[in-house]
């Protein structure tokens, strides 16, 4: 700690009496914000649950689920902010930086909701402003600064390394483009996902529509007159959602199970390892086939569930190995000796130190999950014919293979590019994130 910060702290403790009210106001605002978060989150959770119970029109489930998840996140954040507000009253050092981060996070979540969320977001930014009032800042900022600078340096070094390798940059650019295209689909497509003009079937790229007033088919049409370009972009939404959600859920399940197995060892560990052994005895696609078959319903949801079931053991193995190596280290011993609970040690000490291989693996798996999902849809497990999904588009177009190759070429290219990008990024990140390799 530098001399200024010590001085600042000393000053802080000297005229604590004078600034006591300011800290109390800060804590009060923090508590009010957390209460508002509780109210908002609770209302939206109950409201969306009520609508779900009452039955809903088709298509709105997506928004409802999104709201539900967002409000749950807000509830969790509000609870954490409540604890922080209490800690602020006691002037705990950690509470200041935590308040900074969590309030900003809350603002972000509120902003994604839009509408009334913006008002709440402005309310949540107030504690941040108060934190940076000169008097309050003097109390907590110096030690926070000392804490953060090395982290920012490390981050900037990683960013520099990423910028320096063209392949990673290319991968990131492709991925970002695909995500942007998927999000902007309603604005850049010329046709709907399942809109067809039967008179236009099997047209080559660039041909005009036979119906007056309809836009041109930039990349041609498929066998039933669907516009390939538009369907491809609509399908990007579906495919990216599958692969991202599968990877996220599998990472969460796998990390939890692997961390518990590695940390406690013994019988739990033995059991988990035998179970993952069994999962590894099946090739991914085949096990997915069997699971979808057993679930009995051929849809994108069952494909997602099957992929999640198939993918978690990879992460469980990975995390378990890492945790085994970390748990004997000195910092874990230190955390234990000051009385940290097992959950806290795992969540805040061990897992952050094991996360790098996890990031690499999950980045690369975005591509492999996409490939497997598309393969499953191609075999015929996916949504019913007509839906916009890359694998399914190829499967249908394959029947009219000799007349129309464009309907196969473009969706396949999209799959290839996405998988390639995720592999590029994962490959590059492995070299960049490995601290042993990077400082050379």
């Amino acid at each position, binding site marked *: 700690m530098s001399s200024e910060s010590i001085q600042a702290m000393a000053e802080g403790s000297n005229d604590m009496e004078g600034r006591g009210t300011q800290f109390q106001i800060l804590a009060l605002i923090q508590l009010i914000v957390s209460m508002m978060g509780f109210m908002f989150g609770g209302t939206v959770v109950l409201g969306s649950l009520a609508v779900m119970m009452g039955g809903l029109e088709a298509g709105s489930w997506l928004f409802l689920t999104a709201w539900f998840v967002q409000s749950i996140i807000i509830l969790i954040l509000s609870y954490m902010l409540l604890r922080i507000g209490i800690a602020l009253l006691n002037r705990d050092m950690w509470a200041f930086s935590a308040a900074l981060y969590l309030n900003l996070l809350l603002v972000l979540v509120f902003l994604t909701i839009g509408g009334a969320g913006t008002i709440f977001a402005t309310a949540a930014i107030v504690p941040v402003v108060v934190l940076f009032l000169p008097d309050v800042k003097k109390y907590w900022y110096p030690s926070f600064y000392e804490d953060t600078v090395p982290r920012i340096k490390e981050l900037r070094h990683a960013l520099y390394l990423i910028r320096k390798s063209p392949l990673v940059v290319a991968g990131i650019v492709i991925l970002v483009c695909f995500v942007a295209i998927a999000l902007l689909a309603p604005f850049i497509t010329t046709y709907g996902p399942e809109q067809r003009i039967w008179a236009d079937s099997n047209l080559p790229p660039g041909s005009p529509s036979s119906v007056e007033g309809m836009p041109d088919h930039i990349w041609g049409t498929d066998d039933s007159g669907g516009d390939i370009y538009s369907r491809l972009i609509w399908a990007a939404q579906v495919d990216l959602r599958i692969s991202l959600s599968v990877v996220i859920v599998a990472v969460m399940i796998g990390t939890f199970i692997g961390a518990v197995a590695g940390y406690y060892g013994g019988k739990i560990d033995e059991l988990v390892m035998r179970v993952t052994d*069994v999962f590894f*005895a099946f090739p991914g696609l085949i096990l997915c086939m069997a699971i979808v078959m*057993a679930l009995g319903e051929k849809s994108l949801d069952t494909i997602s569930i099957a992929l999640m079931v198939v993918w978690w053991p990879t992460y469980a193995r990975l995390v378990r190995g890492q945790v085994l190596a970390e748990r004997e280290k000195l910092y874990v011993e230190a955390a234990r000796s000051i009385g940290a609970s097992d959950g806290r040690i795992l969540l805040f000490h061990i897992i952050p130190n094991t996360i790098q291989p996890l990031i690499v693996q999950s980045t690369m798996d975005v591509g492999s999950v996409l490939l497997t999902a598309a393969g499953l849809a191609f075999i015929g*497990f996916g949504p019913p014919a007509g839906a916009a999904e890359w694998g399914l588009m190829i499967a249908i177009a394959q029947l009219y293979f000799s007349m129309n190759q464009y309907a196969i070429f473009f969706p*396949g290219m999209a799959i290839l590019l996405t998988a390639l990008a995720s592999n590029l990024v994962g490959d590059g990140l492995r070299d960049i994130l490995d601290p042993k390799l990077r400082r050379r």
Partner: protein
Amino acid sequence: MKLRDFILRRLILAIPVVFGVMTMTWFLSYIIGNPVAMYINTNTPASAIPAIRRAHGFDEPLYVQYFLYLSGLFQGDWGISTSTSFRPVTEIILLKFPATIELSMIAMIFAIVLGIPLGILSATHKDQKIDHIMRIFALAGVSMPIFWFALMLKHVLYFQLAIAGLPHLPGGERYTLIRYLSFKYTTGFLLIDSLFFYGDFTLFVDALLHLAMPGFCLGYLTIAIITRMMRSSMLEVLREDYITLARSKGLTERVVIYRHALRNAMIPTVTVIGLAFGSLITGAVLTETIFNWPGLGKWAVRAIFSSDLAAINGFTLLVAFIFVTANLVVDLIYGVLDPRIRFG
């Protein structure tokens, strides 16, 4: 640990996995799915269903059912495939298995013959133009949707050439059906049958041509995996001290790489080759449907469309057994090649 102990220990460790695999398939098709569906169709009268349940033991408690299932598996009763004229699953597997194995073997040969030299080339020319090309080639292989690649190959090498009137590769099946009509297999492997049992060389060549495109298509992923593995392990080995020593002795680069480095660099590659069997069989499901290859994969896909639970179950079991065996063999070879593993 002695080699014998190591092998024994590894064999014993495989037993719970095999049981786990059987339990898993049982769980999937008998708990989540409806096992009775295997034995009934739309024409079955509803009154007959309880009798069917009783006849196959589906009204027993679960543990008895589990035991019945396991004993059935061991006795070769893997159920009846409703989509393949109600014949036993084991019989069909025996019939279709050679075709798939033949295809996988050709793919594996492609992968080994191309992958290892490409990997060495990439490692010895690190960061040069040829290395970049090889890396992109390998990366594309890992991220290639195999069904799309198969269709594109078929489009270029079959349709386009055929339309242009040029000599072209055949686009599907195991041999030219029109020329050889029905064919009686002895071993089921067409390459072996045609040469040793029929002595028909033209048929052999025909079969080889038919294997070329699906074989390469199926092997591309494995080529990519082997190239990447070979490159990284070769680079690692080339950094070792004994390579520096060999170079400082004045040995030529050729001898250093092929005599000294290659042997140790091959160890991880052998593992990858063994593990690639799993991906080959997965790929076979997709490749066979496109090239109309009368193997297990195509049969399984057909079974899916007619909701043939027993066939899928049998196929999953078989693939898992192959995969477990391949892993076991890889581990054993690894233990023999690298004594450090045995003591670890």
